[in-house]
C-alpha cells in the first residue's frame, strides 16, 4: 500500500492561515491503514486546529469529510455538495489523491496534509517499511523477491557496494544490506545463477515521464478518445 505521514502541525497551521473555513478531506484507504489520513486522523486534526485557532484568537472553522478513495472520481463526487461552503480543502490523501481532488475542484485551493512516503508493507503494529519504487521494470524475479531498487540506497543491480559492513548498509547501520540479503536468499534457494549475468542499466527514459496505463480490454475506448 501507499504509506504517508501527517505533516508537522506547525506547517499545517501555516498552510491554512489564509482560510476561514477549511474542509479536511480524509481518505479511507491506504492513508487510513497507516494511521495518517483516515476519518479518525481527519477528526483529530480538526480538533487540534480548533484549539490552535482559539488560542491564537483566529476566526477559523474546520469540518471533516472522508471518502473511500480520493484517487477515484466516483468517490470524489460525494463531496460536490459540501465543497462550495469552504474556502480551502486540506487533503490527507497520498499525493495522487491530493492532485485528483485539486483536479476535481478547480476553484478551491487544495492543501497537502500529509507527506507521502513510500509504497510499503505493514511490518508490525504502527510500523511500515518501504518495498517498492514503482520503477516500471520489476527485477524481483531475478533478485529473489528482494528489491535492490527500493532497498539499496544506490539502486545497484550487480551486487553489494564496498560500503557494506557486517551485512549492514553504509548509509545506516540499522539497515540490512539489500544485496547481502539477495545473495543469501538466492544461495539458500540454489539460484545464484539468477544474478550471475551482468544486469544491464535500468531504463530511466520512460521512468522520468508521468505514467499512464491502459488496460488491454479498454484500449479501443481510450484510443477513440485520443
Amino acid at each position, binding site marked *: 500500500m501507499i504509506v504517508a505521514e501527517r505533516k508537522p502541525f506547525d506547517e499545517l497551521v501555516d498552510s491554512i492561515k489564509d482560510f476561514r473555513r477549511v474542509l479536511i478531506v480524509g481518505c479511507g484507504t491506504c492513508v487510513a491503514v497507516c494511521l495518517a489520513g483516515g476519518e479518525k486522523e481527519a477528526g483529530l486534526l480538526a480538533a487540534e486546529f480548533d484549539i490552535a485557532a482559539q488560542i491564537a484568537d483566529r476566526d477559523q472553522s474546520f469540518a471533516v469529510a472522508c471518502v473511500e478513495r480520493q484517487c477515484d472520481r466516483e468517490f470524489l463526487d460525494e463531496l460536490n455538495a459540501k465543497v462550495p461552503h469552504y474556502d480551502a480543502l486540506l487533503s490527507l490523501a497520498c499525493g495522487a489523491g491530493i492532485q485528483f481532488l485539486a483536479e476535481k475542484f478547480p476553484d478551491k485551493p487544495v492543501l497537502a496534509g500529509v507527506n507521502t512516503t513510500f509504497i510499503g508493507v505493514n511490518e508490525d503494529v504502527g510500523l511500515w517499511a518501504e518495498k517498492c519504487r514503482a520503477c516500471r521494470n520489476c527485477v524481483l524475479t531475478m533478485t529473489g523477491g528482494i528489491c535492490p531498487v527500493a532497498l539499496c540506497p544506490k*539502486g545497484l543491480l550487480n551486487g553489494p557496494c564496498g560500503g*557494506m559492513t557486517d551485512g549492514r548498509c553504509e548509509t545506516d547501520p540499522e539497515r540490512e544490506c539489500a544485496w547481502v540479503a539477495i545473495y543469501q536468499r538466492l544461495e539458500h534457494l540454489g539460484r545464484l545463477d539468477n544474478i550471475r549475468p551482468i544486469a544491464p*542499466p535500468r531504463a530511466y527514459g520512460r521512468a522520468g515521464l508521468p505514467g499512464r496505463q491502459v488496460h488491454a480490454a479498454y484500449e479501443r475506448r481510450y484510443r477513440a478518445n485520443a
Partner: protein
Amino acid sequence: MPEFEKALAEKDFVVTVELDPPRGVDLKPLQELAAALGSRIDAVVLSANRAAKARMNPLLAAQALAQQGSEVILTLTCRDYNRLALASDLLAAKAAGVNNLLLVSGDHVTLGDQPEAKPVYDLDSTQALQMAVQMAQGRDMAGQEMEPVSFFLGAAAAPRANPLAPQVFRLHKKTEAGASFFITQPLSDLEQLKNFVQQIKSLETKVIAGVEAASPEDLEAAANLCREIKASKLAAGVHLSAPDHQDSLTALLDKCGL
C-alpha cells in the same frame, strides 16, 4: 599501452598513491606533490569527490598532472554522473592525456558534506566498466557509433567485506565487465589480504592492496603493513593513501622503503 598497464604487466610490485584534488582552485600544491612523488610511484589515483565531499573536478587536476608527466588513474564515480556525463568525461579524460580509469559506484551522498544531494547511480560500477569497454569499441551505451576511446580499466574491491562471498561474486562481474585491476579498500592486516586473494584466486584481475595512514601518527604501522604485503607477494602492488594529510605520502614512501 598505458605506462601503468605496462608497469603492472612487467614489474613485481607497483605503487600507486591516492591524491585528492584541492577543495579550492589552486592546483600548485597537488602538482608539487605529484612531482615530488615522481618516479617513486607508478601512478597517481586522482579521487573524485572522495567520501562524497565536493572538491575540484579531478579531470582538470588529471590534465595538469598528465602534462607534467605523471601517470594518472582517474576515478569516475557513478554517484555524481549519469551515463551521459560519464561518456562525456571519458572523452575529456582522453583529451586530457589520461589513459587509466578507476570506475566506482561511489560513497553514498548521505556520508558526505551535502547529504541532501540527489545521488545519481544511473549506472553501477559494473555497468560503467561495460560502458567504457563499449566506448573502446567505438559505441556509446545506446549502441551509437562514436570515435573509439580506450582506457586501462580498474575497479574497486572490498576485501574487508563481511560476508565476503557477495563481494567476491560482484568482483567476478566487474572482471567480466572489463576490469583489469582492482584497487582494494584499505586493509587492516595481511590476514585480510590472504583471505581475500584466496577467495578470488580464479580471477586473473591484478590486485593492488590498499594501505592507508589514517593520520600522520599511523605512518609507521602503514609502512609495516606495506612491507609485509610486498614480502608476501600476495598482491601486484600497493595503493597508498593518507586522506587529509596527503603531504605525508613522501614520508610514507620513505618508511616503506619504496
